[in-house]
């Protein structure tokens, strides 16, 4: 009786959930039939999915558009790389990367969440670019423009056993398991009281505050979690590429999760994952014919923003529930205006 308790959310996610199940089966069997490159590609998709999931907790669920997420991604990547170069233990690298990113995110978040809307976006942009300029210029530590190279794909040092990850297949399974855990965690989170609270902040921070919710505290929580996820995604990168370079901290890289989320769908849990997949498919397919794939991506972004703000996943749902969806969208619009109006009062 309580099962379809959050029917609206339920309706939005269930198709994505099914897609996820199908995907799972495929993912675990993939090494059996697919080549090294498609594994490599899948790892990238999984990494971006984690990155984008974290971002969407902030944007889609809490209503804060951050342009600095690449900064936390980079912190995760660089810390992990540094650790791997010093001590060859993947576990240590991942944990270190995640913690590093989390700490930085918590600190910068504390400063950032006092703003909303454009000011929040600008502030996160500034913080992200600070991290970028450190990565770029602090050559002694970060290798500067040339980055850190020759990072080993260290064995997974678990208490008891030490699992070599030299082959792509092995590392593929590590990334797969880690990302599935991360996705599962996020899935639990958005369906928890915390998740509900964040969505309430998105819909109306004023109402939430007068319902007894500390707006800043919960924004900070969302920001930090997003940072942790960015850090995890970043930490998974160096062992794959054996190299970390400043561009991953640049604001234009912050746009990747934004695009993935936008393409897949902002108000659906599966959106960012589907989006990450599509993003790489689009790129990989287009790149085979022409090196000019950004222009296509740009066109897709424009079309989505103008036509399908729900993203690919909810295009289907809009087809199922056109009337409802539109009414909600309109209501949300007026809500935002009202909110904006109040602020100017």
């Amino acid at each position: 009786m309580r099962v379809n308790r959050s029917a609206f959310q339920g309706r939005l996610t269930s198709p994505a959930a099914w897609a996820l199940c199908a995907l799972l089966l495929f993912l675990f069997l993939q090494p059996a039939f697919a080549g090294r490159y498609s594994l490599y590609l899948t790892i990238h998709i999984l990494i971006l999915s984690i990155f984008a999931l974290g971002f969407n907790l902030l944007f889609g669920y809490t209503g804060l558009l951050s342009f600095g997420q690449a900064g936390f991604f980079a912190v995760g990547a660089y810390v992990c790389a540094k650790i791997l170069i010093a001590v060859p233990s993947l576990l240590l690298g991942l944990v270190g990367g995640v913690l590093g990113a989390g700490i930085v995110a918590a600190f910068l978040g504390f400063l950032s969440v006092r703003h909303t809307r454009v000011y929040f976006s600008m502030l996160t942009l500034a913080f992200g670019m600070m991290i970028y300029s450190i990565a770029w210029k602090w050559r002694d530590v970060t290798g500067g423009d040339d980055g850190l190279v020759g990072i080993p794909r260290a064995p997974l040092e678990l208490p008891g056993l030490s699992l070599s990850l030299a082959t792509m297949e092995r590392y593929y399974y590590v990334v797969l398991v880690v990302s599935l855990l991360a996705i599962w965690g996020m899935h639990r989170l958005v369906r928890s009281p915390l998740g509900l609270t964040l969505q309430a902040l998105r819909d109306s921070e004023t109402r939430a505050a007068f319902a007894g919710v500390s707006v800043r505290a919960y924004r900070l929580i969302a920001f930090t979690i997003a940072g942790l996820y960015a850090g995890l995604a970043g930490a998974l990168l160096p062992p794959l590429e054996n190299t970390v370079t400043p561009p991953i901290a640049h604001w234009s890289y912050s746009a990747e999760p934004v695009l993935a989320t936008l393409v897949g769908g902002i108000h659906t849990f599966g959106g960012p994952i589907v989006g990450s997949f599509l993003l790489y498919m689009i790129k990989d397919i287009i790149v085979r014919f022409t090196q000019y794939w950004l222009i296509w991506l740009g066109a897709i972004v424009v079309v989505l923003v103008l036509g399908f703000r729900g993203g690919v996943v909810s295009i289907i749902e809009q087809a199922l529930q056109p009337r409802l969806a539109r009414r909600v969208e309109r209501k949300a619009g007026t809500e935002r205006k009202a909110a904006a109006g109040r602020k100017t009062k």
Partner: protein
Amino acid sequence: MKRWGGLTFVILILAWFAVPDRASAQCQLGVPAIKIGVQGAASGPHADYGRQIEMGATMALEEINAAGGILGCKLEMKFMDDENRAATGVRNARYLVTEWGAHFMVGTDSSGVAMAMGPVLAELKRIHFFTHAATHRLTEELVAGKGIKEIVRVSVPIYQDAIIAALIFKDRPEIKRWATIGADYEYGYASWSLFKDTLKKYRPDVEFVATAWAPFLTLDFSPHISAVMAQKPDAIFSTPWAGEAVMLLRQALIQGVFDQIHAWWQAMGGSVDVLEGITGEVQRDRFKGALWATARYIHNWPDTPENKAFIERFKKRWVRFPNYSAETTYSALFIMKAAVEKSRSLDTAKVIEGLKGMQIRNPGGLRVFRAEDHQFIYNVPAGRPVMDPKYPIPVLGDLRVFDAKDYYRHPPFTPVVVTK
């Protein structure tokens, strides 16, 4: 430019369809085609180098295929833009080898990209013939040091940019104060450090008075120029390249730099695209003979029939002069051909064996393979950009020719302390 693109595209298509049975039937290596992955910077102010790499590779491939391929096997190539970014270069390499199925790889402009690719090549077990990336560390550290045998360099490293400069300017007693406007990455630092080390050996009296570093995508060099000129240097050692070099020189001119200094060393200023860019200024002798430059190959040297013929074929094919990345890439394919024919195999280890002791005549002159660091040794002169009635664009005149063994570093290598 459109025309090249179109042609290249057609070639690629042809190569694509030219593969089937007929070719593989007679191919003694038992593959439908020998696949060569080519990379270079094809966008941004350095895009001309990527395109020159593409042109050089395409032309070599056409000539080899026209002559019946390698042991009867046709060649096939795919070019990718590495955007001068390590991550992109690595991703492309993985794609080219594990997905597209490249047997060999050629190209790469940026030292940063090259250093990032090195370890990955070991994992991919494929030879990459580097034809531009110039940091000495690629061959000295990764090959001689770490033993990554998949790295082979056809182009001359920063020995050309740094040591030759030192050898030329040690004999200019009036030049005592040096400053650098450097590329803000591996290549720039390494060249400057190596230059200082070498010059100090001959000239304890010189000072190095100022540095200004310009990263990729520096839009405006005027603050860098005025910053170093504030220290009243006698000469400037400059490593930005391609379009950035042209803009740097032009802004130096309008800041009257060439009235105040004795010499300006534009390391890769002998490259065709830079010479094209400064044609007007050279015609009007705006540099007052103070501008010096070299390259990894220059189109007016060596004065041999092979080179002349190469230039002619290249001009006929692309309606342009080849710059050094075109020559080095073109030559790399023939080096690869020779090695494969010697080892009669596509197996990486065997081909590396095939390279041992190789001496080969290329348009750029005689190249000799050095086993310790997989560096091909050949010499390129330095000189001053001047107009020559035989050419529409400037050439390097007043040439200073040095024997390769005199300015290459030799194993065992003592590490250069690379500092900004």
